[in-house]
């Protein structure tokens, strides 16, 4: 069964090659190619996942003729394969859910461009998940940024262009910091592969030489990733970018793009630097503080938004805050909770964006809360989807958001520091109340019948919307009810990360 070891690379290459191929195809053909690639990558990831579960050991795949520490490598364990599979499925469902809106929002002669970007985004996400080389990680971060920027601006309105420019500016600041951090790390360790780098870093810390450059590099790397994944206070680009894109773009951007960067950060903490060293230079405490601030301020900003698209986008800031809070406490339980939250948030947020577009007919002028009153009666499946997504984000039992909050609370109780535990629990409670204020309020709003029916705009629920919303709801329920195996997979994956 060793041929399965080739599959991660094949999945990356397949999605990468399909990009240029799509550029000469018609929109319709490019769409087919893109769906084929996403489905195939998903199937390949499932095979890889099954293989690593069976062998129980992560494997490294040598790229090119040179062995470590000189060449380039892919490293696949349970966690990587699971995340890749999950990402492929979320991407597929987002594409299906946004199918009609994509066709409506994008001119026919440019539709193939959209699918090129999707293919490139998938390639870069898979590469970020699988790579074992820090510089390769940087290159794919840039590819991810470029394709995400394309997805933001593909609708072509002034607002999208401005959002894309703002996104690019912030992202480029982040990539500059990442690049200099990687250069400094290369300068003090002499390696780019993660394991040899880790060995050098352990020596450096033991001998006490170059500790300042190391601290600076780790700090710059974290700030770079934080800017790119919209951790508070670097979230200024996020609301416009997520709130006004076409349906599939919003769903994919909010659920997957920032998560690819965060996955690289987990690798950086566990595989490159080591959690003990992170703790000794106290980067985790900084992330903890900003994570908590993001949870609260993201939610408070969301409450003030009259536009529901922007409200959901601001709630992403809060959810990213949760993830960083888990990294900030820097215990195994905390990071497992964070990784679970990555999955839960991806499932919930893409459901919310797809449902919102269903409710509003994909038109952002209809996304105002007043106009959405009673919208759930016009598009029932989208209404149910929005309600389930909202309840999951708030943390109602049986849904994904609840389970991840339980894991966060358990991680808090296991903390040795009482003050940190208290801060975390209070932040969880306050943030849940804030989440409930806007999500439950909005759900009630869409289920409030209109007095005068003639003011309502009409929307249509297509089959694609049904398939996507029902599948998203099932995923949310699965993550909420059947979280045990996922938890144990994350645990196994992390222990051999």
């Amino acid at each position, binding site marked *: 069964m060793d041929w399965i070891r080739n599959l991660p690379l094949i999945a990356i290459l397949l999605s990468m090659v399909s990009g240029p191929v799509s550029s000469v195809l018609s929109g319709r053909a490019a769409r087919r190619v893109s769906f084929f690639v996403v489905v195939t990558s998903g199937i390949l990831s499932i095979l890889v996942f099954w293989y690593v579960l069976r062998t129980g050991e992560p494997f490294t795949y040598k790229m090119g003729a040179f062995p470590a520490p000189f060449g380039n490598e892919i490293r696949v364990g349970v966690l990587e394969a699971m995340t890749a599979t999950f990402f492929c499925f979320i991407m597929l469902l987002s594409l299906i859910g946004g199918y009609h809106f994509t066709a409506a929002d994008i001119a026919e002669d440019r539709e193939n461009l959209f699918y090129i970007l999707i293919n490139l985004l998938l390639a870069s996400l898979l590469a970020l998940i699988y790579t074992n080389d820090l*510089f390769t990680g*940087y*290159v794919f971060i*840039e590819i991810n*940024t*470029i394709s995400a*920027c394309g997805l933001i*601006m593909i609708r072509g309105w*002034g*607002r999208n*262009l*401005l959002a*894309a*420019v*703002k996104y*690019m*500016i912030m992202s*480029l*600041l982040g*990539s*500059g910091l990442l*690049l*200099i951090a990687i*250069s400094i790390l*290369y*300068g003090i360790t002499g390696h*780019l592969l993660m394991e040899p780098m880790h060995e050098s870093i352990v020596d450096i810390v033991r001998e006490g030489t170059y500790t300042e450059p190391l601290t600076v590099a780790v700090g710059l790397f974290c700030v770079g990733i934080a800017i790119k994944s919209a951790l508070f206070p670097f979230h200024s680009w996020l609301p416009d970018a997520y709130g006004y894109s076409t349906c599939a773009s919003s769903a994919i951007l909010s659920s997957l793009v920032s998560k690819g960067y965060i996955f690289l950060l987990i690798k950086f903490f566990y595989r490159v630097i080591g959690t003990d060293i992170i703790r000794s230079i106290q980067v985790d405490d900084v992330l903890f503080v900003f994570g908590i601030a993001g949870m609260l301020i993201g939610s408070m900003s969301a409450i003030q938004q009259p536009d529901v698209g922007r409200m959901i986008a601001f709630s992403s800031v809060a959810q990213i805050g949760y993830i960083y809070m888990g990294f900030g406490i820097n215990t195994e339980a905390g990071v497992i909770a964070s990784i679970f939250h990555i999955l839960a948030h991806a499932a919930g947020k893409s459901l919310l964006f797809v449902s919102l577009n269903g409710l509003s007919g994909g038109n952002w002028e209809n996304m105002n809360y007043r106009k959405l009153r009673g919208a759930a009666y016009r598009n029932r499946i989208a209404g149910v989807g929005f309600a389930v997504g909202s309840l999951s984000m708030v943390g109602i039992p049986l849904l994904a958001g609840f389970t991840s909050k339980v894991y966060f609370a358990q991680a808090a109780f296991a903390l040795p520091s009482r003050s940190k535990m208290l801060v975390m629990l209070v932040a969880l409670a306050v943030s849940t109340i804030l989440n409930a204020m806007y999500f439950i309020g909005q759900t009630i709003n869409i289920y409030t019948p209109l007095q005068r029916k003639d003011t309502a705009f009409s929307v249509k629920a297509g089959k694609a919307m049904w398939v996507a919303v029902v599948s998203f709801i099932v995923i949310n329920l699965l993550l909420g009810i059947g979280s045990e195996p996922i938890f144990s997979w994350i645990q196994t994956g992390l222990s051999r990360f």
Partner: protein
Amino acid sequence: MFDELIHNYLAVVSMVLFGIGFGNLLLQKNLIKKIIGMNIMDTAVYLFLASMGYISGRLAPIATDGNTDPSRYINPIPSGLVLTGIVVSVSVTALMLALTVRLYRRYHSLDIDAITLMVQQEHRE
């Protein structure tokens, strides 16, 4: 302290340049100046990488006369990283310039604050 700065003058220069570029990308209102800032920032990193890989008195790592003795050449990996970085930076610059052109055609301005105001007005109407 001062000796160290003199000794590592290339690293110092590249960090100063990085700061200049970073500041320009962050603070300038004009989009073209922002893009120039980004390029200064990236170039600073390339200077830093190239200076790290350079060993004085050695040749560029291209074996033209069949001599493969590694002690004759400088470290080739930073040069490779710089080349990769340049490719990334060129493509990002192209994308940013394309976006700037589209915004300019629509709003006849390069000032990002002015464009933001116009977009907000457009939305209100």
